[in-house]
């Protein structure tokens, strides 16, 4: 009994309504969600980047493969990059069979996440509408719907009448410059609270023994045996990382740094087919619930959803100029407002509360780069462009399998870095982005 009580003291409390009431009434405070251990000098694996991808990779390494001597390093705080800046949309209605299978698995993991991680991620499966304003777009929607159905993902093309029934606030008349001709309707799509996903993975990974180190910036990746200077580059292998808090030796480094992916890979002498562009998003003041589905328009470069709190969250296409600066621009808000009012003229009096930007690591084919590189022990989970958040869980699961088994699982084989050398690109631009 004493032993189990002792364990209970060290085991973090489970989250539940009963625990909330109990602790609230007794005046108990909640303990720290994850520990803040000393940085060791050696780990079995080091994950660079403490966002959804990095944390999920560490979590699945520990949960599925019993590899718990893992450190997740982040130069700022957990979820400070794309994981905290995305528009939190979840969907699987992609264009290629490889993409549909992959994002479909991620949707499954999001569905059971609240139970698996014991945290309320506020997953709202509210349906996802991709509007078509041209015959060409309608043709692509039909194509996507058929590929989705074959891959077991629920998608269908619907007309303006049905769209109006689902989202009455949309202008489905022929008044706008680009009238709505139809839409790809994807009922399993929805939104999720992105911070809760980050915290959920961090907390669950921490319970399993993984260490999270914030404000720990990787300054160099230490290699030996490679053809480049310092033993880096093709043919070499990873021996550790140099951080602002000292050197760490490790045989495995997993680069999960999204917008900064090129910089961290360059430290190991690996070049990537990636260019970093900022993507801006904005949020309005909260209003009563009126938008029951996620609405996307490729032609109008916008996607919009209403949070449970009532704010409208808008995202757009990436800024055209490559930069690491996340400064916003007034061109963005002007263009956004113009386009949104084409879709929903009724919200012209709503006020924007704020806008922000995140960094997107864009690849030429709008698909990620996952798995091995020419440097042994240096793995990448990058190229997440504008679609990384929705893929976080499945990426973590698959990357953990890569580390544990030393093989690339079938699900992510199409996304290997070597595809750029063989020319087998996975073109997802038509389904992964707006503004094309």
């Amino acid at each position: 009994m004493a032993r189990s009580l002792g364990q209970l003291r060290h085991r973090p409390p489970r989250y539940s309504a009963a625990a909330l009431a109990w602790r609230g009434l007794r005046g108990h405070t909640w303990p720290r969600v994850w520990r803040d251990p000393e940085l060791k000098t050696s780990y079995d694996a080091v994950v660079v980047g403490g966002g959804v991808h990095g944390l999920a990779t560490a979590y699945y390494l520990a949960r599925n493969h019993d590899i718990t001597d893992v450190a997740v390093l982040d130069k700022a705080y957990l979820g400070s990059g794309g994981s905290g800046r995305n528009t939190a949309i979840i969907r699987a209605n992609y264009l290629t069979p490889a993409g549909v299978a992959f994002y479909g698995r991620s949707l499954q993991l999001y569905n059971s996440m609240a139970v698996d991680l014991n945290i309320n991620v506020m997953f709202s499966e509210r349906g996802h509408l991709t509007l078509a304003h041209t015959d060409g777009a309608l043709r692509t929607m039909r194509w996507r719907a058929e590929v989705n159905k074959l891959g077991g993902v629920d998608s269908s093309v619907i007309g303006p009448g049905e769209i109006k029934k689902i989202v009455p606030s949309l202008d489905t008349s022929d008044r706008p410059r680009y009238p709505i001709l139809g839409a790809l309707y994807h009922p399993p799509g929805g939104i999720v609270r992105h911070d809760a996903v980050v915290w959920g993975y961090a907390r669950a990974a921490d319970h399993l023994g993984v260490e999270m180190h914030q404000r720990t910036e990787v300054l160099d990746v230490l290699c030996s045996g490679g053809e480049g200077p310092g033993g880096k580059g093709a043919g070499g292998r990873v021996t550790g990382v140099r951080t602002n808090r000292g050197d760490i030796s490790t045989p495995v480094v997993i680069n999960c740094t999204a917008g900064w992916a090129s910089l961290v890979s360059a430290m190991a002498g690996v070049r990537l087919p990636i260019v970093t562009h900022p993507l801006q998003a904005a949020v309005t003041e909260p209003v009563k619930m009126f938008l029951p589905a996620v609405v996307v328009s490729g032609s109008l470069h916008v996607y919009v959803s209403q949070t449970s709190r009532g704010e409208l969250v808008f995202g757009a296409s990436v800024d055209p100029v490559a930069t690491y600066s996340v400064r916003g621009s007034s061109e963005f808000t002007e263009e956004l407002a113009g386009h949104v009012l084409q879709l929903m003229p009724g919200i012209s009096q709503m006020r924007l509360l704020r806008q922000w930007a995140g960094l997107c690591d864009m690849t030429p084919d709008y698909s990620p780069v996952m798995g091995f590189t020419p440097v042994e022990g240096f793995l990448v989970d990058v190229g997440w462009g504008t679609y990384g958040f929705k893929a976080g869980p499945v990426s973590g699961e698959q990357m953990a399998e890569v580390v544990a088994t030393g093989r690339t699982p079938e699900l992510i084989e199409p996304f290997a870095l070597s595809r750029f050398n063989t020319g087998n690109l996975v073109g997802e631009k038509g389904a992964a982005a707006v503004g094309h």
Partner: protein
Amino acid sequence: MLLVPCPNCGPRNSADLRYGGESHARPDPATASPHEWRAYLYLRHNPAGWLRETWYCRSGCRRWFALERNTATNEFRDPPLPGDKRGGAA
């Protein structure tokens, strides 16, 4: 807003130009190996610092030119002047 120093038209909003991306030498298609050619097509340095890149002044002089910009701060360095060889060597 990014003010781009066009060598012919002076400072202009980046929305008036088309961004051409990282400027790098094209290998000779006759002699390049498939590996070299694909590296030229796809691989990028993508530095967080000074980068030589190309721009097209689409609503001004309608010329391509190369500039150096710091991708972390968005400052331009030493913009070329009209007639400057560097300006035409995109």
